Structures are given as structure tokens and as C-alpha cells.
């Protein structure tokens, strides 16, 4: 397992905080989803994980945070190291204690808990006392004033976007040192999307939080990330420094859309399916 080939790291200089080496994931004993994915997150970096629907982004994140077991998925090959130690045998809660927290796709709030309680649950692993936790709650409410209005509503009843904020806020409550964000911008109003990325950046710069970000909003993701990986059908097909990726022609065509004067209206999109060159 440990013999997995060393991948082309982000940039040899920064020490890899999290490294995923050539993992293979199988669901339900029969469905092979990840076919050897390797990636690295340097300490203090923001790494974006891009790719189409079903490419395996969520699966990658879940295998890092050890949540796959709950979905009858298995990492059958490869290894995952966090701060140099393998984490596959750890409980998810051990990882959280070590500072790795995941915002799950699909707004997994606790529906029968109020927004407030949801946030407090996020601080479950913290040991620094009630006052500090209250401060964090206030900070989350500062980020998301809309949540504050609905703080005593059951999370099951709040709107989709509010649930998304709740899930993100809940993750922030644990004072993480590494965050795995699975499509944080989904379903949020444009203004808020901007804000979310600002928050991410702020956490990264001020508190040194390392971030692995799975996103569909490629535009935004590449703007904020340092490094990016592009996943297609369970394989990394391209990776590189975010700026370079953003300049790459293929990436521009398929993920970013052509901006500027040439920007096509969604109304005029051609009625034929284009083929991605690298899938040939």
C-alpha cells in the first residue's frame, strides 16, 4: 500500500499536510468509483477539486474524512496520510479532533434541532468552555445574518440556502485546521457565494486553515484556490497551479465558459454534444 507512487505534488516546497495516494474506492462491493486518485494539500493551502457530475469529488472527500463506511463504500487500495500518519483506521470523530472537518454535500443539517442547536453541536469536540463557543456562534451569525433571524427555527424547516449556511456555520464552529468543503456555494444567492469564498480566504490567511474545496463553480474556485485538480470519471486528468488552469484552453471551454465579448448566451448554446479531448 505504502508503495504507491509519489505523485506530482502541489509544489515540493510546502510540506504536504494531507496526501491522498492512489486510492481506489468501491461502493457496495461492486461499483468501482475512484480508480486511483492522488492529491495533496499543502499546509495552509487552498486546493480546488474540480470535475463534472459523478467524477468522484464527493467520494474523494468522504474517503478522506472516513465517512464512506456509512455508505457501504470502501477504500480498497492506496493510502491517505494526514500530517504524515495514515488515517484510514481512525474514527471520523478522531479526525475532527485533529482538526479535519467536512462540510457535506446536500445540506446535512440535523432537522429536528434548531439552528442554534445545530451550531452548538458543531462545537461538540471543543473543550474551551461555553463563553468561547458562544463567541464562535456570534461570529457565525455575523457571517450569516440570515441565520440569526432564524436561529430558533428547526433546521428541517428553513430554506435550502439557509440550511447550506447552517451546515457551513456548523463546520466553522469546530475551529478546524483543515476544512473539506463539498460544494459550499450550492444553492446560495450570488452575493453570498462571494461572501463564502471571502470567508474561506480569510480563514486561510488569518488562521492558517488549509482547505480542500470541491466545487462546480469553477470560476470562483480557481480564483480563490492556489492549486487545482480536475477529476473525470474517477481519475485525476489534469492538475496544476490555479492560475495556469484558469488559462488552460480546455478548462476555459468546458468549465469556465468563454468570458468577455465572446461569452455565449445560455440561450444560444449549440445543440450538439462536444467531446472532451482528454477523454478520447
Amino acid at each position: 500500500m505504502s508503495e504507491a507512487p509519489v505523485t506530482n505534488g502541489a509544489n515540493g516546497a510546502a510540506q504536504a499536510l494531507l496526501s491522498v495516494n492512489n486510492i481506489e474506492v468501491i461502493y457496495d462491493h461492486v461499483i468501482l468509483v475512484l480508480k486511483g486518485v492522488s492529491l495533496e494539500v499543502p499546509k495552509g493551502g487552498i486546493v480546488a477539486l474540480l470535475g463534472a457530475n459523478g467524477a468522484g469529488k464527493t467520494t474523494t472527500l468522504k474517503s478522506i474524512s472516513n465517512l464512506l463506511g456509512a455508505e457501504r463504500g470502501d477504500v480498497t487500495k492506496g493510502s491517505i496520510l494526514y500530517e504524515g500518519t495514515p488515517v484510514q483506521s481512525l474514527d471520523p470523530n478522531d479526525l475532527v479532533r485533529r482538526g479535519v472537518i467536512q462540510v457535506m454535500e446536500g445540506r446535512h443539517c440535523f432537522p429536528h434541532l434548531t439552528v442554534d442547536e445545530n451550531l452548538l453541536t458543531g462545537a461538540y469536540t471543543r473543550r474551551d468552555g461555553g463563553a468561547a463557543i458562544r463567541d464562535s456562534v456570534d461570529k457565525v451569525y455575523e457571517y450569516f445574518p440570515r441565520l440569526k433571524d432564524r436561529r430558533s427555527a428547526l433546521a428541517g424547516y428553513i430554506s435550502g440556502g439557509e440550511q447550506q449556511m447552517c451546515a457551513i456555520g456548523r463546520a466553522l464552529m469546530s475551529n478546524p485546521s483543515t476544512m473539506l468543503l463539498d460544494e459550499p456555494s450550492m444553492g446560495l444567492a450570488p452575493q453570498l457565494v462571494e461572501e463564502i469564498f471571502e470567508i474561506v480566504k480569510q480563514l486561510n490567511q488569518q488562521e492558517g486553515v488549509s482547505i480542500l474545496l470541491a466545487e462546480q463553480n469553477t470560476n470562483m474556485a480557481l480564483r480563490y484556490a492556489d492549486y487545482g485538480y480536475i477529476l473525470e470519471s474517477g481519475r485525476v486528468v489534469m492538475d496544476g497551479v490555479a492560475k495556469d488552469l484558469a488559462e488552460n484552453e480546455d478548462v476555459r471551454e468546458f468549465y469556465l465558459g468563454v468570458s468577455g465579448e465572446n461569452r455565449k448566451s445560455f440561450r444560444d448554446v449549440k445543440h450538439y454534444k462536444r467531446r472532451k479531448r482528454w477523454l478520447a
Partner: protein
Amino acid sequence: MFYREAGQFYTSYAKDQGIFQLRQDKYGLWGILFIAFIVIPVGLYLLVQGGLMAASTKDYLYNSIFLLLLVNSMAALGLNILTGYCGQISLGTAGFMGVGAFAAYKFSTGMNYRNQHEDDAGELVSQLVPMLPPIDNPLILMILAGAVTSVVGVIFGLPSLRIKGFYLAVATLAAQFFLVWCFSRVEWLYDYVSSSTIQVPPMKLFGLVVTGSETVMRDGQQVTIYPAAETKYLICLATVVFFAFVAKNMVRGRIGRAWMAIRDMDIAAQLIGIRPLATKLLAFAVSSFFCGVAGAMLFIFYLGALEGAEAFNINESFAVLFMVIIGGLGSITGAFLGAAFITLIPIFLVIFFPWLGGQFGIPVSTALVEHIQFMIFGALIIIFLIMEPLGLARLWQIGKERLRQWPFPY
């Protein structure tokens, strides 16, 4: 390698809508039916004739194993429709089976009611007056039993509009307890006999004795004919196969899709136009019909005489639910697999342990066997669930998927 769809194309939707996606599956089913209908009866007959098997062993296989298996499969099919396909957990199955049994009894004896009066001497005289001609055709009885049970099932299904999940499960116990109470309290149901026990009257089908016995003169001698185990077996088998076919048709068509929609997400189902109450009640009706047939079958063929409160007690309800869950919710095959598991494993263990003990010269007490059997059975349930929460049917399916891909691992 051989279990592949390679080369099998369907050129019409009608074909593609067939029960089986794979020709091999179809042949498999025909094979199983062939075994069940022909190989088993003929084979056992030959074995007994050839002196390789005791006649009583053959009877044991039919009367205690095959019949019970068929009855349980029938009940599991019924519950699977309700719980597996429509998502309504019910613990009233035994009660509904009881309704079927008692309905069959009442129809078979002509719906007697009691006419009671005091005669001149002040003695109480009572007599039973039939309201309908007695029916002695078991097939008709089973259908009637199913129909009556449907009605009862619909009544007890009404609260399902409001009550969901485990709340509904527990609420259906109301049906269970109430019905069982009726079986021991409503004297009309058991023709006023003091012990509240019902007994199946003699019946014939196609000239064959099915229940009871018949005394005829043959060569100037009185001969009593008892029902052959094969007769009972084949009747039950045909019934179960027919209803399994019906169930499969229902669940793969529009009705089944409506049920599954309600099961998977009832709000979304409503928003695409499915009426929740009607759909759930239909599931209750169909499921109860099946359970009613199973109850009638249990009564007519398997037990012959029964006491409602005992034969249909709550544990039977649980047993059927186990079959459905272990077999696989929402799978017709699963109903059979589950019934086989729950019916056969305990019998197997009970026979196996004393045998094993015998091999080592250790006498095993029956109580210990029973306890070990329970422990192993419980452990097996847990192990299976951990291995595959979706039941034996899913395990079976995974096996097939693997086979399809074989020899490639994924």
C-alpha cells in the same frame, strides 16, 4: 462468462418490459418451477417406492416443511407488498391471516348462526342454522377469504394516512390485538364451540380428498381415504406461484410504481399526482388479500384445526415481518428467500445439533438445542444485516452482478 446479456437485444418495448432482463433468469425460473411441480413430487414418489425413503419422511417433508414454507411465502409476499413496496410497516399480519382462516371456516360451514331458545322444560336448546350453502372447494374458499381480509385490511389501513413509520407499526398492533380478541370472543366466528377452536370440514377438489377423510366401499370393504400430502402440496404450490406472478405484475406496473413512490418519498409522490390515501389503502387491500389467502391456506392445509388466539398470535406477525426484512424489502424473490430462511433455519438447527452431539457422543438436551438455535438464529440475522442490509435478495443480486462481470473483478 455465461451469465451475460451479450447478444440479447430487445427490439420492442413489450419485450423489454418482460419480467426478466436476462434470458438466463427466465430459464432459471422455469427450471425452479419444473423442479417444484414435477421433480419433487415424482422424485419423492419414486424414492418411497424404491424403498430409499420412508413414507413418513416424505409426509414430513410435505406436511411440515413444504406446506409451511408455502404458507409463509404467501404471507411474506403479502406483507412485502405493504411494507417492502408501499413502505407501511405492519405488525398486524397474523391478525389478517386469522381473518382469512376464519372467513374460510365460515364459508366452508355455511355461515352458521345460532338459534337459541328455552324448551318447555326450561332447558336451553340451541341449533346452528346455515345462512349460505357450505362451500367445499378450497380454491374458492381461499379467494373468498382473501376478499374478506381485504376489506378488514382496508379498515385498519385508514389511520395510515396520518400515522407513519414505527408509529404506524405499533398502531397496527391494534388490529392484531383486536382481531385476535375477536377470534376468541365473537362466538359466531367459531360456531359457538366452547373452546373457540375451528376445524376444517372435509373438502375435495377435482375428486381428490383434500381435508378430512372419506370412507368409501371398495371391493365390498370400507376403506377410509385420507388426503395425500402431494395433493395439498400441489394445490398450495399452484396457488402461491399464481399469486407470486400476480404480485410481480403489480409491482412492476403502474400500481407498483405508485406504491414505491409513496414509500420512497410520499410528499414528492403526492406532488406528481399520486393520491396517498387511495394508494396506501390499495396496498393494504392487496396485502391483506394475500395474507388472507395465506391464513386460509394455513388453516385448510397446514393446521386443519386451530385456535385463533394461538395460531395467529403476535409472534406470527413478527415472524412474517422478519421474513420480509431478511429476505429483502421490496423484492418478490426476497419474500421466498426470507420465508425459507425463517422457516428452515430453525428446523435445520434443531435437527443438526443433536446430530452433531451424536457424532461426538454428547447428548444435547432439547432445551439447550432450542437455546442454541435461538442464539445462532439471532446471530445469523445480525450477521446478514451487517453483511447486506438490503436482505438476501440483494445478496443474490450482487452475486448475479458479480457473475455478470466475471471473470473481471469490477
